[in-house]
């Protein structure tokens, strides 16, 4: 690993490197994968990563310079929405806790999208209380034998690798007996089943692990240190929320506002004031997100991030609920109950009924609104924690 002190890379140098890359690999003629591999090797994948691992030890903020230059040149991207879990969660964890061998093995195909990643954390019995999960990993020579059931796994059916959290010691309190692995989704004993949602579609999967052998060299971090490793993963999940800048009326409010403008026959005074209230709420949420991004840009992030997910979930639910009601007879209809396997949420391509139902998940997935309120109350407001009864009890003795 090239951990020699990084020379300060600036925007000009990056533009130069982009030009050099484009000169050698013309996006118009080179195939996509060749280009992406070359970009990675040039350190232009994620410039704040170390040299040799797709980066240049450059400030993270400079990534936008590279992206803009490549986009202007018509270069292909790595389809980040398709490989979001790899980029957003697996990569930072591999970088921080992976061995040099693991990082070299996994990061390049992860970034280029040759290998899709998924996340094997949640279980049917361990939702908000993730640390209580029960999937067992038992040591057997230089491997671990893993058995259990995971749920809410997106991309499991397309993934080659998974980040996996499993219990290696049930005799100690729940946070202490976990270990973090990289699991081969093609290994014998891994079974992926689509998990149908109330919308009719199956974005996610259940994953059944039946005596799956995971080599010890695919362990990330120490045995029993899995919770600490997982926190890195989860913190990176949370950073991703709050997301990109929206224009005014960006998001779901725009759909309903356009409906209002285009369909005068649906208007009533009572709906009008409700629409205006939600319009104000949506605009203020947009401003709050914008303010958060401005704080992040100055390097002084405020605690607002914890609240944005809460706000957006509530808004999506209230707005879509209003939309169905506003449509009246049309609101009684649905677009399609066929079981489909979309890669992502599609709030704009589908109908109002879908929006209404799918938005219900916004306050559950990625941390329930209840857990977020706990976090705000304790970590932001500093209110005292509730009495805990599960901290010092061996996992095997906890009520379930």
């Amino acid at each position, binding site marked *: 690993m090239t951990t020699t002190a990084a020379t300060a890379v600036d925007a000009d140098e990056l533009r130069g490197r982009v030009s050099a890359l484009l000169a050698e690999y013309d996006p118009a003629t080179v195939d996509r994968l060749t280009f992406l591999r070359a970009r990675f090797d040039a350190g232009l994948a994620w410039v704040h990563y170390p040299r040799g691992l797709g980066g240049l030890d450059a400030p993270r903020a400079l990534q936008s310079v590279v992206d803009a230059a490549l986009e202007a040149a018509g270069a292909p991207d790595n389809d980040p929405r398709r490989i979001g879990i790899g980029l957003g969660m697996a990569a930072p964890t591999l970088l921080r806790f992976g061995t040099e061998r693991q990082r070299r093995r996994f990061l390049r195909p992860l970034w280029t999208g040759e290998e899709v990643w998924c996340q094997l954390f*949640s279980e*049917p019995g*361990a*939702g*908000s*209380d993730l640390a*209580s999960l029960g999937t067992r990993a038992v040591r057997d020579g230089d491997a671990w034998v893993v058995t259990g059931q995971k*749920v*809410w796994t997106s991309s499991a059916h397309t993934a080659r690798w998974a980040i996996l959290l499993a219990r290696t010691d049930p005799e100690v309190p729940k946070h202490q007996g976990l270990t973090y692995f990289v699991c081969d989704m093609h290994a014998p004993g891994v079974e992926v089943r689509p*998990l*149908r*949602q*109330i919308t*009719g579609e199956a974005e996610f999967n259940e994953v059944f692990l039946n005596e799956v052998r995971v080599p010890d060299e695919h362990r990330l971090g120490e045995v029993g240190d899995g919770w600490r490793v997982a926190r890195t993963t989860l913190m990176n999940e949370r950073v991703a929320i709050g997301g990109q800048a929206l224009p005014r009326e960006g998001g779901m409010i725009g759909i309903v506002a356009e409906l209002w403008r285009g369909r005068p026959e649906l208007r*009533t*005074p*009572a*709906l009008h004031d409700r629409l205006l209230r939600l319009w104000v709420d949506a605009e203020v949420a947009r401003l709050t997100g914008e303010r958060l991004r401005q704080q992040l840009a100055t390097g002084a992030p405020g605690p607002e991030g914890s609240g944005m997910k809460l706000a957006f979930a509530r808004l999506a*639910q209230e707005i879509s*609920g209003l939309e*169905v*009601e506003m449509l*009246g*007879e049309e*609101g*009684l*209809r*649905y*677009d*399609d*109950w066929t079981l489909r396997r979309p890669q992502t949420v599609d709030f704009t391509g589908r109908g109002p*009924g879908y929006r*209404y*139902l799918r938005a*219900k*998940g916004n*306050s*559950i*997935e990625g941390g*329930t*609104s*209840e857990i977020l*309120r706990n976090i705000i109350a304790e970590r932001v407001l500093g209110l005292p924690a509730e009495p*805990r*009864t*599960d901290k010092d*009890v061996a996992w095997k003795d*906890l*009520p*379930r």
Partner: protein
Amino acid sequence: MTPARTVVPRTDQDLLYSEVEQDLRSSVHDLLADRCPPAAVLARCEDRTPHDLALWRALSRDLGVAGLLVPPAHGGHGATAREAAVVLEELGASVAPVPFLTSAVVATTALLGCSGAADEIARLASGAATAVLTVPLSTAPGSAFPQGVRADAAGVLTGRVTSVGDAGCADLLVVPATGPRGPGLYAVHAGARGLGADLPVSLDLTRPLVDIHFDRVAARPLAGPGAAEPALATALLTGAGLLASEQLGIAQWCLDTTVRHLGERSQFGRPVGSFQALKHRLADRWLEVVSARAAARSAADALASGSTDAPVAVAVAQAYCAPVAVRAAEECLQLHGGIGMTWEHPLHLFLKRAKADEVAFGTPGRHRAALAGLVGLPA
């Protein structure tokens, strides 16, 4: 406190359940528990055959619910909206896919307002046939007489009606149509020549919609000008008022199911139901459900007694109960966490029914606007 003088006080309503009503509830409840668990309803929806006609036969014939609102002289039981409301509570609490509301309440009430429908009424009352009033499910009481279907002088119908709930299992269509002499109600046999049906995809899987086309369909006049409009108005008012009891049933099921789930599931080493934030939310939902019960009973009682106050009681009940059912279902989902988002758990059937019911027979906003006129609070 000063009572206002402009609004008539009502102190004579019976808001409780009689013994007869409780017995009827028990019978319906037991039958549904045996024949219509939510998982079975879900399985039927997956097979795209939501209507459970065997269940409906048992309800309508064995328990006699089809003839509740029909006077004995017409072959019915001569009960009232109060008893029908109790049945609807139980049907709501199991999202039972049977045409009680649409056939035994709404279509039957419409027919009872016609002078020449004795045969049809008797067949409905016995459970030998089901009927549907061909208006969109979203039609509110007090709406203008529908203009989608025209009748010629011979009673031949042409036109189109969309989003008719439960029409897929009806033997008889009761069709509001405008003829040369004005508004009328007409009877059409479900197998009539010229009748067409499209099956749109419905949000509520358990009360599927049908779009109906009439292409020169022969029909029998049931009521002409002067009778058709009040018959239709009473049917819609009754449908809206008793829908509140269905919504109550939905809300009660959602609350009960949530309480049970939270008592059973542990997180952080304790039952989830012991977390105070959730307890307080459920206490609020509970208060809404007991309040919805009073509102639904009031509407049923006012309809049963033919009170002049019925339009107010119905509008209050709909404006109140519709959002209570939606909130109860939404909270049920949220507090089930991930499991609530899965198709496998039947609670989504209740959410979809509750949301569709919010639109059925008029939205809450529509009912509040109606109240404004009824109680002298103009815009």
